[in-house]
């Protein structure tokens, strides 16, 4: 996809977002359909949570109405009026029956809520994954996401591709959550609740999106300076599209001789200390794998869209896009910068 049409699509997507609430766009899976709204669930865990939340809202809503009515009534009816004499009202100290009533009733409400909740907890946390489930390992870094597909031999970053899992072809994705540094949290509200990524701990979550499209989320556990821009995109692809994407990712990185100069800059100018590109000597793990960098719509974990200008700016001065990120300013000469950008732009 060329830069221009991508920009046009982005513009269109932003137009849709301005009235995000209740304005579902009709375009298929090349842009986010909806804001990260838990009340628009598109996956089984998110649906279960949504159903439970409606029950909880109803119960608490009833309690709210009852108590507010009583309180408002008391305020209106029992105000001291100007014509009142100075006698004190009847001095009532309490009533055991009333106390009993408003102890037992709330306990019953709690038990109802608790049992409904416990069911959902078990349904989500203890769900058994079928053998065809896609396995993904997500590793949280300051301030980007690493995604590995161990059985497929794929390593990518920030934009997670998962297969569609509808009734005809159920295929949930099971995600193992790890962290390379400090605490993070994986949260894509339309697809499920959040689960934390904690160093020295292995967490699990799963999702089975029913509708293709792009789903938004972001890190939800404060992890340092750029916690705010550790954004997430989940691309839910129909079966064929997912297979296409996967086979593209499995291929070794493009080795275009026309950008050999740029590749030399990449390998000599310390980029390889943090980044890896398959088929080269760059095997750094501190930063994202760049083998198929151009297959992503955004850079810097969603902080900017993947355009020529943004890429140049990012390499030359990351502070301008994501101040406090751990990518150092590379301080390349203009010529080196242009050639390394040209190289990166071949990594489809």
């Amino acid at each position: 996809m060329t830069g221009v049409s991508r920009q046009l699509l982005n513009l269109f997507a932003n137009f849709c977002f301005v009235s995000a609430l209740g304005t579902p766009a009709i375009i298929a899976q090349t842009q986010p359909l909806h804001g990260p709204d838990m009340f628009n669930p598109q996956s089984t865990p998110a649906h279960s949570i949504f159903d439970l939340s409606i029950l909880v809202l109803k119960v608490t809503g009833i309690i709210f109405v009852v108590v507010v009515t009583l309180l408002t009534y008391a305020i209106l009816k029992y105000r001291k009026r100007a014509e009142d004499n100075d006698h004190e009202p009847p001095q009532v100290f309490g009533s055991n029956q009333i106390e009993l009533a408003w102890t037992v009733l709330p306990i019953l409400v709690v038990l109802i809520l608790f049992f409904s909740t416990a069911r959902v907890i078990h349904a989500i946390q203890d769900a058994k994954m079928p053998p065809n489930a896609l396995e993904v390992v997500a590793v949280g870094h300051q301030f980007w996401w690493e995604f590995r597909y161990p059985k497929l031999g794929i390593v990518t970053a920030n934009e997670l591709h998962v297969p569609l899992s509808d009734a005809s072809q159920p295929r949930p994705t099971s995600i193992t959550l790890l962290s390379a540094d400090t605490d993070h949290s994986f949260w894509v509200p339309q697809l499920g609740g959040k689960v934390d990524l904690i160093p020295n701990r292995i967490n699990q979550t799963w999702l089975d999106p029913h509708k293709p499209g792009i789903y938004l989320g972001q890190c939800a556990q404060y992890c340092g300076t750029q916690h705010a821009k550790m954004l997430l995109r989940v691309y839910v692809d129909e079966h064929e599209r997912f297979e296409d994407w996967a086979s593209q990712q499995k291929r070794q990185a493009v080795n275009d001789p026309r950008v050999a100069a740029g590749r030399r800059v990449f390998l000599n100018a310390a980029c390889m200390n943090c980044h890896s590109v398959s088929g080269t000597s760059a095997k750094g793990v501190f930063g994202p794998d760049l083998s198929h960098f151009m297959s992503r719509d955004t850079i810097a974990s969603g902080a900017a869209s993947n355009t020529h200008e943004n890429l140049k700016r990012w390499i030359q001065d990351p502070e301008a896009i994501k101040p406090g990120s751990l990518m150092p300013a590379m301080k390349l000469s203009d010529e080196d910068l242009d050639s390394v950008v040209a190289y990166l732009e071949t990594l489809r």
Partner: protein
Amino acid sequence: MITSNEAIVAETYPLEAQQTGLQPISERLHEWVTTVDHKRLGILYICLGLLFLVLGGIEALIIRIQLAVPHSTFVSPQVFNRMFTMHGTTMIFFVAMPILLGFGTYLIPLMIGARDMAFPRLNAFSFWITAFAGFLLYFSFVGGGGLYGAGSAPDVGWFAYAPLTSRAFSQGHSTDFWTLSLLLSGIGSIGTGINFVATIVCMRCPGMTLGKMPLFAWLNLVLGGMVILAISPLTAAQIMLCIDRYLGGHFFDTQAGGSAVLWMHFFWIFGHPEVYILIIPCFAFASEIIPVFSRKPIFGYPVMVAATVCIGFVSFSVWAHHMFTVGMVSYANSFFTLATMLVGVPTGIKIFNWIGTMWGGKLIFKAPMLFCIGFLFQFLVAGLTGIMLAASPFDWQLGNSYFVVAHFHYVIVGGILFTIFAAFYYYFPKMTGRRYSEKLAQWHFWLFLLGFHLTFDFMHIPGLLGMPRRIYTYEPGRGWEHWNLIVSLGALFQVAGVLVFVFNLSWSYFTGAHAGRDPWDAWTLEWSTDSPPPSYNFAEIPTVRSRRPLWDQKHPEDPDWHYE
């Protein structure tokens, strides 16, 4: 029997009387700095809290200005992260705790007919170490050092999760300022907790059995116990953090096999009871004010006591509801869901009892009562959003989002701050001998109420729409912009309300009408002393026969002890 206010003041502070109020500043200052009088220490605590309220409020304003529009560059992410860390830490440890403990320090001896607290010098020590700790925390702005330049306040969030606080991720000393200042203020709080328990258990006047003391005393007794048991775990955790940062320890060092989750457990074992520690004195204020302004005794005194004791115990079993997303096994999540929902039951019972107190009464809508009524509505909502968060799958969506921020501000501002305002207005005449301007107080109430609801009602929505907390900016187009703008606007009304409040109290301090002993026609012992009370509190230690000794005095034909 001495009756005139002036004569009592003259006897108590002879130097002042001689010099017609022109005592040298240095002597006045010396008196205040060396005082062990619980009333003066109480006032010092409250003033300390008000000072930090201004600082914490400025931090909140900076946060809200930055978040009013997406991609704002009002402050850098580094500054923003320090702002929310300092805002939370300040408000909890240096505003709420001092003000609430300060009111307790002032009122408990008066209410139980004692001359001072059990350990007056410990009382003074607790105050001064807390004050020092507050200034230590703010010194970090100049002394923090570290990778990001000269002077940096802590930026690890008020609960300072590991391993973000390890030397690897938190260079310089900013985190140490957080750790040490809270360690010191914790020691001060524990000292006050010990003082509360010992005073209430050992120094009640004759006739005041545990069943006859004001609910304020009961609730502060439970509070004292909770402070002793809840703050100590935080102290322990902070010692461990210091060992990690300075002696090469591995308590929370995940690289050496340590556990980040262990810090969370230790912190929240403190953190959850802490929020009950903050709300229980507020329940105490409501339990004193609502009866007086409804002209009826509190409905269900024994149940109120039992409910509070229940809350005290159960609140120690719910801590991991702050950790629903860390990947605990389903049985653990279920347990904490149940415990959290259950602790809502005694809390709800208290709300019903306050309504029961108002029911059939003659309600007087002066400022203390207005704020208490606001508290009732708001605390109800806060409790209900708490029930929502208690359902752990719901929390998997709502946790760590602006919904949680809205929930706890509803409790802290809508519940705690409203009752603190109520207490200020209720006790101002007793503490200063002056009446405040009721008109200005009403202005304060309505301005602040509007601002509070604009900010914190609408803050729930971005949370429901996926906005996490602790982010210095957010993406446009996710549906969050408009709500954030409204939230930020509400802050301005709150500021206006607080300014009116400060002006009212300051102006009235100098020009208000004399209040007399009992401006509210109330029924507990503190209203039998002069306003302000002399240093020895009571000319004679009183004896009591019921929970409302002044009611018995004023209504000798129908005293309470016929019914209790």
